[in-house]
């Protein structure tokens, strides 16, 4: 069930504790829609942020600062989860740069992945990623695209047992390896899964989302805008007059609210390199979420375009 929580005083103070030389985050206490992580009940805002392509800017100082501004706005608007992977070029390092400049916001929910064939080298890859982020430990570590999943899950569960990791998950995208994915969901103790889902690609509704609900697994949605293609296409279309009834004032909200209003979905992680887009996307974590009947109306409208 979605919940409406106000950002805690502790979080706000943590965010404000950035070193004085850096412009401090101006966290606006506002009503943010959150959903609980089933395995612990911890509340997560329904919108997080991804980092594929958008945060891979290398050593370009100007671009790194622009990414930092995106992160600043994300946190100021109540965001928590940032998702990355060692596969995303310099994205982890750029996140680390931004977090450092923002004074390592307390609000951060760090979600990264292990992505290496050798399971023996999984732990050292995770440690390397942790150093790049500059965090004491990760909140969530996921096995990227089920690569060498058996060995990596062993490592992750051992890390969780020892207290150096809070949550364990697996990821896939675009419907790949779904039968194996389902099998792992059924047989392994998982806190999170990450899959692709959007208003035009609803394949996970059939089996993956029901299994997640049944097994009490939190669900992160990647590719909510089909790598930008979906939202760019929709922005050329007219937003329906009744969109406000679905709690949406623009296409980003429309598409994201559709996703996070599915009862099994915990959050969506659209990636962006632009402050105005992160503002649009974070607005989807405020206001009302569409009802079941409204979701069907949204599908019918978009499919008819």
């Amino acid at each position, binding site marked *: 069930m979605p919940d409406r929580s106000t950002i805690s005083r502790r979080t706000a103070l943590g965010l404000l504790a950035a070193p004085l030389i850096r412009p401090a985050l101006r966290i606006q206490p506002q009503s943010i829609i959150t959903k609980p992580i089933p395995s612990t009940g911890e509340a997560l805002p329904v919108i997080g942020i991804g980092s594929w392509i958008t945060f891979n800017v290398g050593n370009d100082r100007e671009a790194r600062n622009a990414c930092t501004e995106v992160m600043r706005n994300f946190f100021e608007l109540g965001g928590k989860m940032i998702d990355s992977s060692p*596969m995303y070029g310099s994205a982890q390092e750029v996140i680390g740069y931004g977090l450092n400049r923002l004074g390592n916001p307390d609000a951060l929910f760090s979600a990264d992945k292990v992505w290496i064939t050798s399971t023996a080298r999984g732990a050292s890859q995770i440690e390397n990623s942790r150093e790049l982020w500059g965090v004491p430990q990760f909140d969530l570590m996921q096995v990227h695209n089920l690569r060498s999943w058996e060995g990596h899950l062993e490592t992750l569960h051992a890390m969780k047992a020892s207290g150096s990791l809070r949550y364990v998950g697996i990821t896939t995208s675009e419907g790949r390896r779904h039968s194996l994915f389902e099998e792992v969901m059924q047989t392994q103790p998982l806190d999170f899964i990450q899959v692709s889902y959007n208003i035009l690609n609803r394949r996970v509704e059939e089996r993956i989302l029901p299994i997640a609900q049944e097994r009490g697994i939190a669900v992160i949605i990647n590719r909510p805008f089909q790598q930008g293609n979906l939202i760019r296409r929709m922005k050329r279309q007219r937003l329906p007059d009744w969109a406000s009834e679905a709690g949406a004032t623009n296409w980003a909200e429309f598409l994201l609210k559709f996703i996070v209003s599915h009862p099994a979905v915990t959050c969506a992680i659209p990636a962006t390199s632009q402050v105005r887009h992160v503002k649009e996307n974070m607005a989807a974590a405020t206001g009302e979420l569409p009802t079941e009947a409204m979701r069907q109306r949204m599908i019918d409208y978009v499919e008819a375009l």
Partner: protein
Amino acid sequence: MSEWWTYRLSDFLLFSADTYYRLFELYNTAIWPAHIVVLVLSGLWFYFLIRPKPWSGKLLFTFLGTTWLWIAWGYHVSHFTSVNWAASYYAIGFALEGLLLILAGGSGKARPIPSNTHWTSRVGTGLIGFGLILQPLIVLLSGRPWTQIELFALAPDPTVIATLGILLLVGRIRWLLLPIPIIWCLISSATLWTMGASEFWMTLCAAGVALFAVRPVHKKPYSVY
């Protein structure tokens, strides 16, 4: 990679067009004013190509090989790897081609013979001109700032296109030297196309033209030289 058929080129692109172009800007800033020296050397290089001397082959291929080695290190390793882990493999390919070009020049087997009468030779000279002058100009005319210019001997695409051109002017040794430039053209074109960059056709066409024009060497030399 399981279910490989479900992957699209965009699943492998790690960076945006903006980031890719900014990389050239940062690279150019880092090596400035090397451009001036390189422009002079490129002019001389072209002069010795169209006015060949007995030692031209050695000189032309040693210079060309050196530019490949430089790009392997100066561009791929020092810049491109910062956003693309695959660039370390590109660097290996460029270094290998650089060494092959230098060895081919040293062996005396790579002697470019431009001719006005044979069309393969004209295509080769045309590709060299394209790499040296037109490719950088077209990139600029596409609206990118001049600080992002891609120059022969410094940036991969114009250097590779000019290399394809010179390989059309030499004998059988070309078969050893052609694969890496052709592979690069395909990689570069696919990268630009996936990024949505309009200039993706340049390396693709250069590879197509070179493959079309290349064919078993005539017994007699093309030219009077």
